[in-house]
């Protein structure tokens, strides 16, 4: 049966012909929205009700406070909060009732009701909105980030109705009929991973990650793809300058080993690839372990691995420099960097160094990947991460090239041999120092 057989006999015409000015969801609709945010010690809910002209008219004889009391009673009866498998009573805050103007000179009813519950160590939170059963209208549950938690939500993070004030008129989607939200909670920094709402943002993160915001705009159809790619590239390039992306290390390494332009390029390529792999791998692990562990909890370990790798590289470079110094004592040093083939950076160290620079994926990039997953925009997300990594690598490569050419320039200036000979040792010491600092920073995070 493909088509409904149509039986149109009289008296079937419905009350409201669709015209401009009518309540977009029909003038007897009862629309409600529940916003939920889970913090480490409490759950906050906000219940919003938008009741159209006819049900409002039916309550016209009741004083306002009694109408509000009826709505509060309905919410008390039928809005349920379950935390860690147990029903938790909700405490109602001060409710607000207003009567915005509707069609035909008739008012609407609008109620906003804050609710909360004190909880201890929430792990799973469930909201069931069973208010006003069988009434036509828009029903939605929306998640918002809390404090001290990392939340994964089945309910979307965005409300396209602006608190039930405007309703999407897309003729290819039905009014929302969402009455349930399930949230998985772990300690965190106020992050939320949630599916994208119709026209809403993808991921809400209180730390204000610019890149995720850019992505959300793109997912919402704003901005051209080209602009987005350029932004991703620029973001990656700028991001490489922020602390912890190994640029100092790369520079110090190239100085220490007297690398060439080729090495600088190779290093850049390695960083791009390892960074991309890192993001994908972490995304993969995060997805597989999503039930048990949050990506946030993986970062400290990755930091440590990265730090130890840097420390190791620094140590090995230092050792080889010291050895070279011992061997080279008494030789003429004025043009040594052209003749020490065996001292040039080896494939292994280039790879290891690039890997350590790229291994620790930027949280921004991971957020993009997870946001892509949440909003079914996977190809776009993956493409953007690649471009982001390219930007990152471009900066590092440029830095490397700068160092390489600056070194040649300094060689031409014929700085006294003693000082030039000392530079590689100092720079390898620098790498070791960076590795020590990174390790020292990573270890406390593990606690």
């Amino acid at each position, binding site marked *: 049966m493909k088509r409904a*057989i*149509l039986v149109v006999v009289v008296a079937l015409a419905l*009350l409201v012909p669709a015209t401009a000015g009518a309540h977009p969801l029909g003038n007897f609709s009862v629309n409600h929205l529940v916003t939920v945010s889970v913090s480490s010690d409490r759950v906050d809910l906000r219940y919003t009700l938008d009741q159209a002209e006819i049900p409002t008219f039916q309550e016209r004889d009741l004083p306002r406070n009694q109408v509000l009391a009826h709505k509060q009673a309905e919410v008390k009866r039928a809005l349920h909060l379950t935390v860690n498998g147990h029903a938790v009573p909700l405490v109602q805050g001060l409710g607000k009732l207003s009567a915005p103007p509707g069609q035909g000179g008739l008012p609407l009813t609008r109620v906003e009701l804050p609710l909360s519950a004190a909880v201890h160590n929430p792990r799973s939170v469930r909201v069931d909105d069973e208010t006003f059963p069988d009434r036509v209208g828009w029903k939605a549950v929306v998640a918002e980030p809390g404090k001290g938690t990392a939340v994964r939500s089945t309910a979307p993070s965005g409300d396209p109705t602006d608190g039930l004030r405007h309703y999407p008129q897309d003729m290819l989607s039905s009014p929302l009929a969402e009455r349930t939200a399930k949230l998985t909670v772990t300690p965190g920094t106020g992050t939320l991973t949630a599916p994208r709402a119709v026209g809403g943002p993808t991921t809400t993160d209180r730390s204000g990650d610019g890149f995720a915001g850019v992505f959300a705009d793109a997912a919402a159809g704003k901005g051209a793809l080209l602009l987005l790619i350029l932004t991703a590239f620029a973001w990656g390039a700028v991001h490489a300058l922020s602390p912890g992306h190994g640029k100092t290390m790369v520079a110090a390494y190239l100085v220490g080993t007297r690398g060439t332009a080729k090495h600088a390029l190779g290093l850049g390529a390695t960083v791009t690839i390892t960074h991309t792999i890192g993001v994908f791998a972490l995304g993969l692990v995060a997805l597989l372990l999503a039930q048990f562990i949050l990506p946030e909890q993986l970062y400290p370990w990755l930091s440590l691995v990265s730090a130890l790798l840097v420390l190791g590289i620094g140590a090995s470079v230092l050792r080889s420099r010291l050895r070279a110094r011992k061997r080279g004592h008494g030789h003429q040093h004025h043009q040594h960097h052209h003749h020490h083939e065996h001292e*040039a950076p080896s494939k292994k160290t280039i790879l290891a160094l690039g890997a350590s620079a790229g291994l620790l994926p930027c949280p921004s990039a991971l957020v993009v990947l997870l946001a892509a997953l949440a909003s079914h925009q996977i190809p776009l997300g993956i493409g953007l991460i690649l471009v982001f990594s390219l930007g990152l690598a471009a900066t590092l490569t440029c830095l490397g090239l700068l160092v390489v050419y600056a070194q040649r320039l300094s060689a031409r200036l014929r700085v006294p041999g003693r000082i030039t000979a000392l530079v590689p040792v100092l720079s390898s010491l620098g790498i070791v120092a960076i590795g020590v600092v990174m390790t020292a920073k990573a270890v406390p995070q593990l606690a």
Partner: protein
Amino acid sequence: MVATKRLRSGILLLASAATMAFVATFAVLTLVNSGSGPAPERQLDGAAPARTTDGQIKQLQAQVREAPKQAGLWAELGETYLQKVRETGDASFYTRADGVLQRALALEPQGLEGLVGAGTLALARHDFSGGLRYGLAAHRVAPRLARPLGVIVDAQVELGRYGDAARTLQRMVDLQPDLASYARISYFRELHGDLGGALYAMRLAVSAGGGAPENVAYVQTLLGNLLFERGSLRAARAAYEQAIARFPNYVPAGAGLAKVDAADGRFESAIRRLRDAVARLPLPEYVVALGETEQAAGRATDARRDLALVGAEEKLLRASGVNTDVDLALFEANHGSPARAVTLARRAWAQAPSVRSADALGWALTRSGQPAAGLRWAKRALRLGSVDPTFLYHAGMTAQAAGRTSLARAWLRKSVANNPRFSPLYAPRAQAALR
């Protein structure tokens, strides 16, 4: 040199590792996505058909997004939206139906599905001439198809062209004897006073079945209405209950049960059912039934309070530019301003010169103190031989007010002949007038 070569092969190795990671990630993402996200819809794309109207809507919305150039898909989505309105009364789907049907017709101006859908929507909005135009256009596209004929019949009946309607209906049932054509035959016979024939046709419609559950629940409710009109209260109740069993919470059937309850003198139960119906789907028809049942039960204050809702609905309709409705004219005649009733009924007659409009205009004229003019319209309302008890009650009271006592007694007696308790409010008045 050797070092750079090694470096190159190392990068190659890394690149292939990256590709593998990429592929693996993509595979897992896709897997996880289909596992947690919109899995049910995705299954619907497969072999198993979408059972519910909501399921069909989701499926069609997805199909339209995939193939936005296919007029047939847009039209089918529009018709499914109209089915959704029939099931829930959710008016926001009218707007959506309008949008997608216009898109269908823009893509293919002579598309059969688009024309039939647009015709159905026009009829639902009481634009009967528009409905007829779309129906005829669809018929020209597919002369051997029954569906366009259904749109044409509905429009012709509402426009009072009963001779044309009879011919169209015959062709329709010859082409396709199914629920849609039998239900229309039943209504046509009912209008002509052939209750037995109407019942027979409606039983055929019910047993033909098919379509969405709501379609069958709807004809079962219409069967209940016919049984009630004939005075078979118990059979009517059974028909309404079957409709609700077929489609839970079906409001028209709930209102039917309230009618039976009131006829049985169980006013409390009737009022409860009607309150529920009005809360779900506040059509003027149900609000008026609620108010009149309360009035009959001696609850005048409640009745006034509830009937005032019809006034508010009238305001809303006027604000959206719709002024004609027979239900509203009768409401004004009985419970509001008879002068306004005359205006409304005249406008209704101008747009849809059917026996229903004639009945409303006649009763409005009588209530506003013009029973002589009213009588002419009452005769017009009965010209097909209808045995509708409300038509007969209006005609009888009009004749009485016009001083035509014997005619009045004949019509009033006929109004209570089949079902002496056809209305909690008007049946006792008819009985009283006969004493």
